[in-house]
C-alpha cells in the first residue's frame, strides 16, 4: 500500500473539497488507510488515476467466481489485519451423471450446511468435471447444474472447446474454468475471454505459475486463480507462502493471484485443505467431503477469517435477553466472548427471556476459568451484587453444568436455590423450557 505522501503527490492539490475531505492531504491519508477509493476525487488526472489504482489494489488480485470474491488479500498474518475473503470449498460432480444422480449429488453438497451462532457454514461451489470428454454434454450438464445450484460453479476440463461451450452456456453465472496449462493456455484464454469468466491455471510449480501468468498478462487477461501444483502438505505450505510473501512484500504481480488446490477425498485431502485454509488458499476443490470432516474444516475457516481486532472479552455486566421480568430465570457464564455469544444465541433460540450475568474471568472459557480458579462462587456472587440481578428477579438461578461442583457454595453465599444447567450450551433451550414449564 502506498503511503499518504505518495498518494498526495498524485492528487491535484487544489483542496476543492469535492471528495468530502477538507484537503487533498486528508483525502490521501484516507486512501492510504484504505478508507476511501480514488474515484471520490473527480479531478485526478486519468494517468495518475491508473497509477493510483494500480498502487492501491490489493497485492493479491480480487477475482470473482460466481458471486464470491476470491483473494483481495493484503497481509501475511491475520494479526496485522483481517484476512479478506474466506477460503471457498467446492465439491466435484461428473458431467456423466444422469439428471437424477446430478440432483442427488447437488443435494448432498448443499447438505454440508451448518447454522452456527447466526453464521451459516456451508460448501460454496460445485465443480463440474468433464469426464464425458464431450463438449456438448459438458455444456448441457453445466446448464442443468446452473438450474439446480444457485452458487458458484467451477468447470473442470483441459479441453478449450468444452470449456468455452460450457462457460458460454452459463455465462451469467461467471464460472471458473479450470484448467489451463502450458499446452492449452492460448485457447483457454480465448475461451475465458469469450465467456467473460475467470480462468484457473494448473501450474507445475511456482516458477511455472510465473511463466503462465506473464503470458496471460501479455494477452491482457488477469482474472486468474493459481493451482501451484503442490502434491503434498509441505509443497502446499511452502509454495503458497512463497507466492503470498512475494505478492505482499514485493508486490510481485506474476504471483499476485488467489491460490487454489485440487485435492481428492479422504483424510489426506482434508489435511491439505486445513494447511491451505491456514496458509493462503482461496479455493479448495474436493472430490468428496464427509460431514464429520466438513464441520471442523468450516469451523477452522470461520476462526481464521474472523476479525482479529474483536476483543476476546466482553464486559462483566447484566445482559437482559428478550424482555426479562421479575420472575425470569437468571443465568451466568464467563466473559470469554465466544462463550458469551454462544450462550446468548442459544438462549435466544429458546425465545424465553433471561437475565444473563457475565462474570469477569479474564476472558477464559468456563472449564479453563474454573480450573484456573477464576470462576469461583465468590466471584459470581460479587458480579450478582454489582448488577443487583437477584433483586431484579426471583426466578431460578441456573449454574453452567460444567461447574456443578460450585453450586453448593454459591447457594450458601447468595442464599438462593441454584439449579444445575446443561453441560452443552446447545441444550439450553430444552432445559429452559423444562425449568420454566413452557
Amino acid at each position, binding site marked *: 500500500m502506498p503511503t499518504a505522501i505518495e498518494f498526495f503527490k498524485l492528487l491535484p492539490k487544489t483542496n476543492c473539497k469535492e471528495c468530502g475531505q477538507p484537503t487533498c492531504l486528508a483525502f490521501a491519508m484516507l486512501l492510504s488507510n484504505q478508507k476511501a477509493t480514488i474515484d471520490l476525487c473527480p479531478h485526478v488526472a486519468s494517468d495518475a488515476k491508473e497509477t493510483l489504482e494500480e498502487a492501491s489494489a490489493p497485492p493479491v488480485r480480487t477475482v470473482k467466481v460466481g458471486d464470491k470474491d476470491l483473494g483481495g488479500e493484503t497481509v501475511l498474518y491475520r494479526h496485522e489485519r483481517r484476512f479478506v475473503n474466506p477460503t471457498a470449498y467446492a465439491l466435484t460432480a461428473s458431467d456423466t451423471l444422469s439428471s437424477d444422480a446430478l440432483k442427488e449429488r447437488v443435494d448432498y453438497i448443499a447438505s454440508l450446511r451448518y447454522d452456527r451462532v447466526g453464521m451459516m457454514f456451508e460448501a460454496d461451489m460445485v465443480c463440474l468435471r468433464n469426464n464425458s470428454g464431450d463438449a456438448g454434454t459438458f455444456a448441457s450438464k453445466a446448464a442443468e447444474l446452473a438450474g439446480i445450484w444457485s452458487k458458484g460453479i467451477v468447470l473442470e476440463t483441459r479441453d478449450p472447446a468444452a470449456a468455452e461451450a460450457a462457460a458460454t452456456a452459463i455465462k451469467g453465472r461467471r464460472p471458473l474454468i479450470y484448467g489451463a496449462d502450458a499446452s492449452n493456455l492460448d485457447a483457454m484464454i480465448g475461451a475465458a475471454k469469450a465467456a467473460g469468466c475467470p480462468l484457473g491455471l494448473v501450474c507445475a510449480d511456482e516458477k511455472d505459475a510465473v511463466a503462465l501468468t506473464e503470458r496471460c498478462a501479455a494477452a491482457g487477461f488477469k482474472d486468474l486463480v493459481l493451482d501451484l501444483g503442490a502434491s503434498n502438505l509441505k509443497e502446499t505450505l511452502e509454495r503458497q507462502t512463497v507466492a503470498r510473501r512475494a505478492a505482499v512484500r514485493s508486490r510481485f504481480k506474476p504471483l499476485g493471484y488467489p491460490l487454489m488446490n485440487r485435492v481428492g477425498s479422504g483424510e489426506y485431502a482434508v489435511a491439505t485443505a486445513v494447511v491451505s485454509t491456514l496458509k493462503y488458499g482461496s479455493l479448495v476443490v474436493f472430490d468428496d467431503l464427509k460431514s464429520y470432516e466438513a464441520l471442523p474444516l468450516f469451523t*477452522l475457516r470461520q476462526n481464521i477469517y474472523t476479525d482479529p481486532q474483536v476483543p476476546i472479552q466482553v464486559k462483566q455486566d447484566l445482559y437482559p435477553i428478550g424482555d426479562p421480568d421479575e420472575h425470569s430465570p437468571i443465568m451466568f457464564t464467563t466473559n470469554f466472548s465466544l462463550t458469551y455469544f454462544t450462550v446468548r444465541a442459544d438462549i435466544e433460540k429458546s425465545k424465553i427471556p433471561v437475565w444473563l450475568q457475565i462474570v469477569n474471568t479474564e476472558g477464559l472459557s468456563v472449564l479453563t476459568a474454573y480450573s484456573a480458579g477464576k470462576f469461583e462462587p465468590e466471584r459470581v456472587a460479587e458480579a450478582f451484587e454489582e448488577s443487583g440481578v437477584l433483586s431484579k428477579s426471583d426466578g431460578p438461578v441456573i449454574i453452567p453444568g460444567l461447574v456443578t461442583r460450585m453450586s453448593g457454595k454459591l447457594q450458601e453465599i447468595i442464599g438462593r436455590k441454584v439449579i444445575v444447567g446443561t453441560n452443552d450450551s446447545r441444550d439450553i433451550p430444552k432445559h429452559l423450557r423444562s425449568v420454566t414449564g413452557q
Partner: protein
Amino acid sequence: MTDIPDVADRFSGAIDEVALGKGDYVAGGAKGMPFLSFENPVKRRPLIAGEVFDTLDGYPQLAADMFDGRQKDPVEWALMWKEIGADMICVRLVSTDPSRGGTPPEESAALVKRISDATKLPIIVSGCGVMDLDIPVFTAVAEAVRDSRLILSKADEDDYKRLASVAIANDHIVVGFANLDVNLSKQMNILLTDFGVDRRNMLTDPLMAALGMGLDYSYSVQERIRIAALMGDSMLQIPMLCDCTGAWDVGDAVSDEDPSLGDPRFRATWWEAITALAAVISGADIVVMRGPGAADMLMGYCDELRGEI
C-alpha cells in the same frame, strides 16, 4: 520469465533448545517460521505427548473407547501411547482432589515413576488445577523421579513461586502459563527467570484454545510470539507447549445428537487434529493430545511438513 523475489526471512534469533526426560528428546531450536525449509534449517518435528489420567472418572467415554481397554491401567495406557509413536507422556494427576478420591502424593509419585520407568519417555506432569493441593503432589513426584527431567505444568502469574521452587530444587522443567497474551507470556518468562529458573528448564504455555473456541486468538498469539522470538526478543524464545485436548470439550466435536454431523469418533478426531495442526503451524514445539487417531495423523502430517516423507 521474471525471477521470483527471495522471500526467505533471515532472522537473528532462534528458539531455545530444551532437553527433556533423559536428554534424548529436545524441544525447540527453530530458526525460522514453522516448516519453511527455505528459512528454517532445523527440521525438528514438534514433540507429541499422549495424555494419560490417574482416574477415568470424568474422562470422556468417546476417547476411552479408542484405547482397547488399556486405558484402565495408566502404565499400560502410557505404553500404548509409546507404541502409537508418542514422544512424551502427559500424566494428569487429578484424583488428588479430595472430591475425586484424594489420592495421597506418595501414591501419585509412585505412579509417575512407574510410567517413567516403563516408557523411558519424557513426562509432563499436570495437576488437578488447585495449587494448594498440587504442590505436595508435585514435590513428591519431583523427588521420586530423579533420572528424567520432568515437565511440571503449570505456573501462572499469580502463583508461580511454589511450583518454580519445586522445579529448581530437583532440576526439573517448569511451564509458565499465560492466557492468550503475548506480553503476559513474556512477563511469565521474565518472572520465572528472575526467580532463578534456568532458561534450559523453562517452557511456555500460551493457552491453545480449541477449534471453534477461540483458536483464532491462540493461532495469532502464537504466530506473534514466534515472530518476536525470531526477531531477537530473547524473553520469548522459550519453546512453546500447546495442549490441544480442549478439542474434546467442544460440543460440535463430540455431540452425538445430530446424525447429520457424522460419526462423532471421526469428528472429534478431526477436531483435535485440526486444532493441533493450527498449533504446530503457528509455532508449537510440544503438543499434548488426547485421541490416538488424531495424534497419529498429526505425527504423519508433521513428518511430511518437514520433508521427512
